């Protein structure tokens, strides 16, 4: 579905993603793990078009999209959420989501009609907020949300795009313990529908273990391992350089 060939990017002298060749399977949940600075977010940036590679190609359904703009990729069906919260700060939560809905519905250059003419967008946006437990804050200005709430908004906006591929960059970082299950549920639900492909970056191993069909491990920009969650967690390097001692204790 989404393939990369020798995907590489360098910043100055530093190679952040180093000849990564993977094939992300359709309608599955693939997780990416790796130490901080391994290149996970950068890899996402390459897939979604925020950055363009110094080397290598990206294929989406067999089509070479390496030099396609962010916008085009988004329209093709590659949607993403951001690790550092990235919303429209002075708009309300609802408006944030509505903008995403509007884009999905392809209403882009309509200048004549009033936006309230598109009531459905509003309703759809509201439904999404309910899904991520943010409906109570629908009329709050996004900048005034607590951190965890912004993460939820971020997810709602991604869901609104309803894209074929969802790239989720640490969706639950900073989210309260009691609310993580709700988000996991949302992800599981999408997974169960078997309509969308999900790629997930997380540092929460329990989540990775529970959700993933496949796990990719990035290390210093290189693809170190690829396999089922069980395989990966058993991997020595992953154990020592990523998970560390405490995790071992817990496992044992």
């Amino acid at each position, binding site marked *: 579905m989404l393939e990369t060939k020798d995907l590489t990017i360098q910043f100055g002298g530093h190679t952040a993603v180093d000849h990564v060749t993977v094939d992300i399977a359709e309608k599955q949940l693939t997780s990416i793990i790796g130490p901080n600075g391994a290149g996970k977010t950068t890899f996402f940036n390459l897939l979604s078009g*925020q950055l363009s590679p110094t080397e290598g190609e990206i294929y989406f359904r067999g089509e070479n999209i390496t030099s396609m703009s962010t916008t085009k990729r988004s329209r093709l069906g590659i949607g993403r959420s951001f690790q550092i919260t990235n919303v429209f700060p002075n*708009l309300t939560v609802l408006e944030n989501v509505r*903008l995403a809905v509007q884009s999905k519905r392809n209403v882009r*250059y*309509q200048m004549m009609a009033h936006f309230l003419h598109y009531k459905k967008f509003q309703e759809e946006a509201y439904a999404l907020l309910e899904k991520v437990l943010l409906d109570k804050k629908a009329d709050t200005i996004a900048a005034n949300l607590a951190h965890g709430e912004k993460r939820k908004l971020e997810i709602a906006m991604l869901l609104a795009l309803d894209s074929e591929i969802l790239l989720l960059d640490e969706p639950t970082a900073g989210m309260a313990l009691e609310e993580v299950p709700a988000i996991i549920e949302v992800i599981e639900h999408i997974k169960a529908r078997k309509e969308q492909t999900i790629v997930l970056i997380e540092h929460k191993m329990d989540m990775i273990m529970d959700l993933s069909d496949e796990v990719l491990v990035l290390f210093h920009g290189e693809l170190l391992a690829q396999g089922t969650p069980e395989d990966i967690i058993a991997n020595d390097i992953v154990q020592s350089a990523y998970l560390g001692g405490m995790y071992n204790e817990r496992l044992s």
Partner: protein
Amino acid sequence: MNLRTIEKSTWVYLAIAFLLFVVPFLVTGRSIQFLIIQIFVFGIFAMSYDLLLGYTGIISFGHVMFFGVGAYSTAVLFDRFEPTIFTFGLAILVSAIIAGVVSFIVGILTLRLKSHFYAMLTLALAGLFLVGAEKWRKVTGGSDGFTFGLPDMLRDSFTLYMLSALSLVLLFFGLRRMTKSPFGKVLVAIRENESRTESLGYQVLHYKVIVSVVSGVVASYSGVLYILSLRFVDTSVFATDLTIDVLLMTIIGGVGTLIGPIIGASLIEFAHHWLSDLSDVHWLFERWIILYGTIFILIVVFFPKGIVGTLADRYIRWRARRTE
């Protein structure tokens, strides 16, 4: 969010618009009409600026170039051809085309620049227009300028008043609709977070260019009206002072409100007029410009978001408190 409140405000605006058309029957003095026409002209100019500043978050220091294009196209055409209504139509058309092309090019050339750099590049381009107007003296008459004739109809203050009032009202409702359309919502999104807008699948540059062209064409139209009311043109229609004036009007009224810039234009024009008249009242007011400058300072202190912006905020807060 319901339809009723929005309709209410539309009614209010319509009522005000209606009043505007009644005014010239009551206020017949030509000089006061001239003053009001200036408010309409600069109201239109400021609205076009608000599209950039308020809705798309772009500060331009060169917006006057479109105004000047409108002014010169009109003046030169009237100077060269018979002053007829047909020439007037031609002037609008020509200025819109030139302004459209210029704003398109400027848009493409400059919109990838960030904030200050964009502002300064537009300043430079407007400066080049000014120099061009100075240098191309055969056509423009340079800084001395030239006068020209108008068709009889447009010489009439009343007609000119009605024409500008109608233009203002139509453009206001037109632009208001545009900013409230899905397109307008995307503009606001660009203002708030450009890269995020892109990753939602919107082609940001397209929007910026479109808005730059719309804004440029509207600004050039205000230049057309301006020069009709002045019947004289010189290089001052390209002067940075005008950009600064229109910037002030927009900010004073409240950016991103459309009605704000019109109110800002009225305030500046009237304040200017009255304060400068004060100098006749007492010699103390000979330096009335000090008061004029103080008004700006006070507005920032008491209306940090501009007059309309701040009042709207207060209203929202007041309503929130009442419903609490």
